[in-house]
Every structure is written in C-alpha cells, then in structure tokens.
C-alpha cells in the first residue's frame, strides 16, 4: 500500500526489537470474543487511478452550478474564488499543520489568524473577533449562550426571519441547557414586533441582516431598545459580502455578530466546511467561545503571535469552559483571510456594489414577468419572489431545463401554505447576462 512505508521484513524486525512474536500480541488487550480475524466486508485497496475514476463518476451524476445558470443562496453563495486563495491553502505548511500550540514553529498560521480576527472585526464594526467557529449557524447558537453568560439571564428572542437552519441549530443547542429561546414567526412583509418581547428577563435579541428573505433593516433602534433593558443585540450575517455595501452591525449597535464567512474564499462544497465568524466587544472577550490569537514578543523581543486566553477553553477549563469547541474552521478562515486581503477596501466594497447592481437588474427583469412579484422592498444580492405557482414545483421544472433558479422557501420552512409560492433568488458577480436571460425565459416557459 503506497501510504505505508514498512515492508514485511521491516515489520518482522521491529516486532523482534519490541520482543513479541507476532502483531497479534500487541492487540492482546482486546477481548477475545470481539477480535476480528477476517477482513471487514469492504473492497480491497484501490490505486489512485481507480479512486480518481470513482469520484469522477460520482461527480458526473451531479449538476454543477459552475457550468449552469445558478441563482441559489439562502445562506450559501456562489462567488468567484481567486486562484491564489486555493493555491495557498494547499501549501503543505498550511494544509498539513496542526493547531498552532507550538508558536515558535507556527507563526505562519498564527499571524494569519491575527489578520483574520482583525479583518472580521473591521467588516463587522466590532472590537474583537475569534479565530472561527464551525459555521454561521453554530456561531449563532454560541452567541446566544455567550449572551446569556454575559447578562446572567436565561432567555433569548429569535427573529422569525432568522435563517431556519440557524433557528433550529440554536433551538437544538439550547434545549438541554438552563437557557431558552422564544421564536417569533416569519414576517414576509412589514416589521417584526419585537417590543412586546423585550424585557429585563431577556439576555438577547437575535436578528439577521439581510434577513432570510433578503430584506435589509436599520437595527439601530432595536439595539437601543435592547440596551435599555440590559439585553444584548446579536446580529447574524450570512452573506458577508453585504458588509461592503451596508452599515456594519457594530455601527448599528450590535453587541455580538455571528456570521457565515463562506462567501469569501470558501467553495460551496454542498454545504461544508464553511467558516463561522464571531465578533464582539473587547469587554466580553472572556466570555467568548473558541480560540483567540494574540500578539506578544519572543525572548529576543521580536513580535510574535500565540493562542491566548485559553482559560476559557475546554482543554483547560473542562466542564466550566465557555464552549466545547476544539477543532474549528482553520483552513477556511485562512482562505477567507487571503481572499479578503486580495480584495482590500477597494475590492471588497466594489464586489458588494457589483453584487447589488446585478441583483437589482435581475429583480427588475423578473418583476417584468407576468404574475411574478418581488416581495421585499429592500435587499442586497438576494430577494424573494412571489410566484403564481408552487415554488418547489417551479424549481424542479427549471432544473429540468438546466437552470438552478432559486431556493423555494418551503424547502426550509415547510407546511406553511402562505409561503409555498415564495422563491429566494440570489444574484452574484458570477451570474452573467446570459444566465439571467436564461432564467427569465425559462421562468416564462414554466409559469
């Protein structure tokens, strides 16, 4: 087997040095009755050539959004990833390094993390950010737990327009804790009625911007209402590119920002791995979950970086830790950092404008279609269409024509008749004019 260096001869010699007669002697602690004598009922080892063929075959059974018009969003967005980002994350020293617990020989990973934390803090308008969480949904759940610890309160309010997967993930994470969340119903048009829920019991209000339906809102007054009762405002962002065009959560008064960073540098990859962003105020840092990279100096006085404040973490604090997270989204956060470094201020803001421009002109083209209506007044690069028909059926018909036309709301919020005709349509810089024309014409055909 190409991956294992020992020859039969070497194995025999090594067993001799160890002083046992056979390899079985090293497995003697396994209860006899449980030992396996035969091989598992699985295929034998395969050559690289065969393995590659197997996966090409699997790939050929999927419709690649890269080679077909794609307007899917709802928490995962197709963006162009610069080749430099994918090249760098394949560098042996980044790809095959462990968590940087030995800072003397891990400055590459550590400095990149410090840059990542700074970029996340800057775009969210917050003071500090951690070194990543699994994804946006788990980051959102951890934010709620964090808010409860910070405020020493037990109740959270979840916006009805928070991404359904995020709501379910939060619900799941909270269910066995001393904390709970009340969830508002989805509101497709008009404002959500938070006021009646906001009280001294509340640890935090969790709201998404742009929300699940694509709508943008100014959260300033909501933040003030929260702060007035000593509660925190947790803002969720799952299309971070929007932050290049709209006011940052920090500017609007957010206390914690939970984000999904996939749009910057991370491939769609059927839903994972992605990169969870978590940013907050410096004063809450000791209640933060996840790893933190900090700046320091070495013995010679040279600047260097280390993982720090680990007394928050499970490997030191065990059951008293702020979270159980260990492995996080390291390499995805590196991809994010590289892509964001390439974009810079000029590129990031331009990319956001480009996305909004494409989305607006797409909305205008789609509104033209008989019986099709854009539900939300404001949006960034994704909006909700009300169709004259069941959106899920329409999407299937479009797929048959080789168009990935959008995400039916019912895929994420089932069994709600009033939402069945709603279609989420995302438009990024990857959508060409031809793609849009294909969507419009196909939609006309299937409606």
């Amino acid at each position, binding site marked *: 087997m190409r991956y294992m260096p020992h020859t039969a001869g070497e194995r025999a010699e090594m067993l001799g040095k160890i002083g046992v007669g056979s390899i079985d002697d090293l497995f003697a602690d396994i209860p006899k009755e449980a030992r396996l004598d035969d091989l598992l009922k699985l295929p034998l080892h395969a050559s690289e050539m065969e393995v590659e063929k197997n996966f090409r075959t699997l790939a050929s059974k999927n419709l690649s959004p890269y*080679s077909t018009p794609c307007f899917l969003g709802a928490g995962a967005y197709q963006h162009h990833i610069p080749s430099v980002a994918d090249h760098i994350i394949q560098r042996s020293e*980044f790809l095959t390094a462990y968590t940087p617990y030995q800072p003397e020989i891990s400055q590459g990973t550590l400095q*990149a993390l410090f840059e990542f934390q700074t970029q996340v803090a800057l775009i969210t308008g917050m003071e500090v950010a951690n070194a990543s969480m699994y994804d946006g949904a788990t980051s959102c759940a951890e934010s709620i737990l964090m808010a409860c610890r910070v405020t020493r309160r037990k109740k959270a309010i979840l916006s009805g327009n928070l991404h359904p997967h995020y709501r379910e993930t939060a619900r799941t994470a909270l269910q066995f804790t001393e904390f709970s969340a009340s969830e508002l119903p989805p509101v497709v048009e008009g404002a959500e009625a938070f006021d009646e829920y906001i009280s001294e019991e509340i640890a935090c209000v969790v709201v998404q911007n742009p929300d699940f339906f694509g709508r943008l809102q100014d959260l300033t007054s909501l933040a003030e209402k929260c702060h007035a009762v000593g509660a925190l405002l947790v803002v969720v962002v799952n299309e971070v590119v929007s932050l290049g065009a709209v006011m940052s959560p920090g500017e609007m008064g957010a206390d914690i920002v939970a984000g999904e960073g996939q749009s910057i540098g991370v491939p769609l990859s059927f839903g994972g791995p992605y990169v969870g962003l978590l940013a907050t105020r410096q004063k809450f840092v000791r209640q933060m979950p996840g790893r933190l990279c900090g700046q320091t100096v070495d013995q010679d006085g040279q600047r260097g970086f280390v993982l*720090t404040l680990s007394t928050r973490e499970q490997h030191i604090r065990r059951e008293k830790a702020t979270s159980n997270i260990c492995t*996080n989204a390291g390499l995805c956060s590196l991809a994010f950092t590289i892509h964001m470094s390439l974009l810079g201020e000029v590129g990031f803001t331009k990319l956001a404008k480009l996305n909004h421009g494409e989305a607006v002109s797409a909305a205008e083209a789609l509104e033209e279609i008989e019986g099709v209506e854009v539900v939300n007044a404001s949006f960034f690069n994704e909006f909700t269409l009300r169709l004259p028909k069941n959106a899920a059926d329409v999407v299937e018909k479009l797929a048959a024509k080789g168009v990935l036309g959008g995400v039916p709301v019912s895929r994420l919020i089932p069994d709600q008749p009033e939402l069945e005709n709603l279609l989420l349509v995302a438009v990024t810089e990857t959508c060409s004019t031809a793609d849009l024309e294909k969507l419009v014409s196909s939609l006309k055909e299937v409606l």
Partner: protein
Amino acid sequence: MLNKQGRPTQPSSPNAGNSDMEFETYTGNKALELETPLIFEQGVAGRIGVDMAEPKAVKSRLGGIERKDSIGLPDMSEPQVLRHFVRLSRQNYSIDSGFYPLGSCTMKHNPRINEKVARLAGLGDLHPLQPVSTVQGALELIDSLAHWLKTITGMPAVAMSPAAGAHGELCGVMAIRAAHEAKGQARVRILVPESAHGTNPATAALCGYKVEAVPASKNGRMDLDAFAKKLGPDVAGVMLTNPNTCGLFENDIKKIADMIHEIGGYFYCDGANLNAILGRVRPGDLGVDAMHINLHKTFSTPHGGGGPGSGPVVLSEALAPYAPVPIVTHGVDGYDLTEHVTGDTARSFGRMKAFHGQMGMFIRALAYMQSHGADGLRQIAEDAVLNANYIRVGLQDQLHSPFKGVCMHEALFDDGSLKGTGVTTLDLAKAMIDEGFHPMTMYFPLVVHGAMLIEPTESESRQTLDQFIGTMKHLLAKAHANEEDYFHGAPYFAPRRRLDETGAARNPVLRWSPPAADTSDVDVTFSAAS
C-alpha cells in the same frame, strides 16, 4: 548517527563568537527565513488584488442603510498577497515537512489525490440547496461513506452532520439525553474518567449534565471499583475514550458497557483513537451506544492548522431514532434527503448546523478509505500500534513509563527521568524543535506528571523512528550532563524564540489597530519589507 565532523550547525564566521553584531542582518531576514509584516502594515490605498467588472449603475435598493464610512482594510496587489502568505507558510512546521508525533492527534500522511477529487467540478462546487434530483452523486457519496463507517465500527446507524469531534460528542450525548427523556427519565450525572480529553466534560456540561470524574487505576485504565461506586439510577451514561488517552486499550470495556447498561445508562465512546483498532475490533461488538469519528484524524482529512474537521457519530439501535437531521434516505427514484423533524424523524433531537455536514471532508475521507480498502485499513491499525511500541521500547531505558506493558497507537511517558536535571517536559520539547521534530503532546493526559504522549502513526518509516529515538537519547544524555541552560534557551533556530504567553494573556492584543491607537510594544523593523 551523530554529526561526525562535529560541525557547528550555527553559522560560523571568520571570527566567530567575538561579536553578536557580526551576524546581524539589516532586514531581519536570514536568507530563506523571510519576515513579513501584517497585511495592515503593507497596504497602500488604491491598490487592487482582484479585478472585476464595473458595477451596474442602478437605483440602490439597500433600504437606506448604505455604508458611509470606510472599513479600514488594506489594499494590496496579487503578487504582494501571494508573497505574504508564502512567507508566512514557511514559518510553519507541517506533517509534509517532518515527523509530527502529537499524541491523540493522529497526524498522518494527507494524500494529495484527496485534495484533487475534493475539487472536481460537480463535487466541490455543489450548492447545498440544489434540488435533490441534481445532486444524486453527492447523496450517493454520503451514503457510501456512511456504509464504510458503519461497517468499520459495526454500528447500525450514523449521524453525518457533526462538524468535528467535539460536535460529535454533543450529538452523541444529546441523543443519550433525548433517549432518557423519551423514557421520561431525568438523569443528571455523566461519568468521565480523569484522563478524558477536555471536550468530554465540556460536552456533558452543554447537555446540562453534572460531570463526575472517575480516577485512573495503577495500570492506566479507568478504575472499575471507583466507577462501580459512582453508578446509580441518576447516571445518564459514561464517556470513555478507547483506546484511552494513555494509549491503552480499556480491556474491561465490555464489563464497563454491561455495568452502564445495567443501570439504564448509555455508553458514549470517544472515537478519537479509532486509528489504533481499525479492522481489528468493532466498537459495535464492545457495547458502545454512540461514538464520534474524527475524519480529520483516523481518515486523514488535513488538519489545516486547526480545522476544518468532521465528526460523524455512529449510533446503536437504542439511540438511532434520536439522530439529528438531515438524513440521507433511499427514495423511490434515487436518493433523498430528510431535512426536517417530522414523520420518521419525529424523535430526532434536532439539527446541529446549517446544511448537511462537512461534505469536503466526506469526499477526502471516502477517497482515503477506498485507497486503503479492508486490507489497508487493518494494516493502518497494525502499523500504527507497531510504531508506537517500537518507540516505547526504543526509549524505555531513557524515559520513564507510568504504565508498563504493550501500548496501542501511542506511547506515554512521564517526566520521572528528568527529575533533578532542571529540564522540564516543555524544555525537552523546545529542544526537539531545533532538531527538526514537532514536539509530542505534553502535559496531557492529566493523570501522569509532565506527560509526553507520542503518536507516530502508521505513516512513518522505521528510519524516521530511529532518528527520533536517537535524537531523544542524545537530548536526554545532554539533560543529564547538566546542560540545562541549553534547554531553557531552546529553540535557537526557529523563526521565533520562546514567546511571552503570560504577557499575551495579561494584556490581550487580539487585533491590529492603527499605530496611533496601538499601545503594545510592536517591533516594526520589517514594516518596509516585501
């Protein structure tokens, strides 16, 4: 072998040692060891690293919250960014460049074919919410990975969505709690050995359980009597790592399973060390109810400097009904996805993250499994255990083992043999850095003093093991020759000497701030570089 010529590996000079200044470089670089400032110290407003089309001139529909002030991101060109990260990468150690014997972490060879197939068009670029009719290959892939995992572990079910080992623990313990609650039982305690990884107690706490630590026996296993004493009707389950974090197989594991089942509890097995037993024994045959599998350890998806990982959880018949959504199913016309808690999944405890799991890691892990096959998987366990024991025996005269006898995939030593030398486990580790080795896991598990946990994995050649053993012997001899100053000063050749971690925690600087605001003592020597 010893460097025969007795050559200094430090740079020698015409008049060596008579002045430090001799060797100062102006840039702070040292030939191929190249410094690079923070990107924030390199930007020049107006540079661009990504070209794109001009935005369409449209009437804004941003709802009146257009961003007004600037963000503060640095502008750089593509070559600058590329060079910056290439230079950073060169300051890292990696499994590709050398031996990485981190106990409990299973740092093994990461095949490149796995990276290649993960990037195939039609796999790496799929959107998670495409109609299932357009992702049949992806669902087949997940289903076949599930089949491999169930076959390897001998368990009937697997939850694929957890994002890492700790997330898998959460999944498993939630299933346990859900099962108890379904029976109307409110159990409050979970038993966890002292030797357990920190994620175990942290996970139990997140599920609202009270964690009770079970001490280790003299032979490095969980103390059965202590365990028995703690058992009771309010115990929800036990979280046991096997092989355990001392690198030993819990030989009473079946008894432990029976005991926990007897009181109506469940057996959670931490599968981080599955590598040691692949194809030799199936957890399903040992009474396990739930076990996470770190695909980024046992099945070699690259650790990436901290992640991402993937932590599928295999489940017993008893716990399977409580598995989280989504679940891949076999529909009438091909594969299907159940994404909501309804009908067949009515008892599911919920959802652990957005979408379907770490697909990118699934692809790599399946490619890794197919490459090994049933024969290769068993060989993995055998060679991993062989290598660990080769190191154990190779160092047994120099290093003190807290527990005698054969080990599994990792060899555990304590700092007994360093007593009186003034050299600590940490000092020894830092000296190993200069020798070109990544240190072993240190001070874990907590049950032994100054622990050194060495996991060579099956990927390493005998030559590497011999060089490692030789180096350790050399360093230990040096330690016993009163050269403690040398150890306290190590490492000497790394990009940085020892760093001030206390200072970092006392006055946390967690982000760059514009110089004005930046009060910390920063060395800006290189801010003109590259």
